[in-house]
């Protein structure tokens, strides 16, 4: 369970960190707490897994990985875990999820793959297909970003 202090810290951490020499000092002042208390709370939230990562998020297309594709795979249920772990281990895969398929859409494993070009993404998907023996998959390239934001947790509390 989260303490009230942890919930307060989570609320203020949903905004970007100010780029200042002592960025946590402002957060602490905002909450009426000592800087060291806030730092300890953040470390605790990281250790307990509530914060899965703390740091900079880059724009992929500005850091050399220009192209990405969502590749949806149809995997026999008995192989799902094994194949999911195999594909997740690849460096070019940033996200790998098993998902419950829908009647009109039978794909149950999703990998986000990154390459320098779209052709490279297609090659990556083809190579993964050869390695896994999976033959039914869909490569989904994005045409445009319609929204990209971060979730605001506990915002109505």
């Amino acid at each position, binding site marked *: 369970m989260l303490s009230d202090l942890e919930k307060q810290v989570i609320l203020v951490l949903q905004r970007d960190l100010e780029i200042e020499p002592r*960025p946590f000092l402002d957060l602490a002042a905002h909450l009426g707490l000592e800087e060291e208390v806030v730092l300890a709370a953040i470390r605790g*939230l990281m250790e307990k897994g509530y914060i899965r990562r703390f740091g900079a998020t880059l724009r992929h297309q500005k850091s050399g990985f220009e192209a990405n594709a969502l590749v949806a795979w149809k995997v026999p249920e008995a192989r799902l875990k094994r194949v999911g772990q195999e594909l997740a281990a690849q460096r070019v895969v*940033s996200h790998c999820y098993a998902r419950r398929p829908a009647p009109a859409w039978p794909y149950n494993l999703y990998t986000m793959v990154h390459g320098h070009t779209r052709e490279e993404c297609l090659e990556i998907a083809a190579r993964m297909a050869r390695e896994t023996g999976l033959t039914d998959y*869909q490569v989904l390239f994005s045409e445009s970003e319609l929204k990209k934001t971060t979730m605001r947790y506990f915002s109505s509390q």
Partner: protein
Amino acid sequence: MKNPKTENRKAATGALDDLDKAILNEIQSHFPIVSRPYEEVGSRVGAPEAEVVRRVRAMTASGVIRRLGANFTSRKLGYTSTLCAAHVAPERLAHFVEVVNRYPGVTHNYLRRHHFNVWFTLIAESLERLDQILAEISKASGVEVLSLPAQEIFKIKVDFPV
């Protein structure tokens, strides 16, 4: 469509130098949770604190850094999420996107080249709330939405070596 197409936006500044890259690699995965984090980063990459601060500000201004802060594990906070897909006719696209993007729980939304051409992620505080939002979206837009809830997460990694 009035939504900004940020996907293909070009970098506003030139290439990153070795010090920029060293700083990025540090602050992506190992951002120090200490009183003076940029002093600590500087000691790791061999630069003074003020220089690190200046470069992080510049890379944020130029758009290389999209955001700086905490990424939460939504499931551990009691939230649940799903990936949604919809087949939307071109003439209904603008309205559909407007309806969908209104929800704060829609964090990512992409137009993709496929029969199912709109793909978005939705986070909510419960499965019931997810279903309720999807029903509202279908009712307001007249579009049927596929929901593909996550069953197991094998990897979430947003770090890239630069």
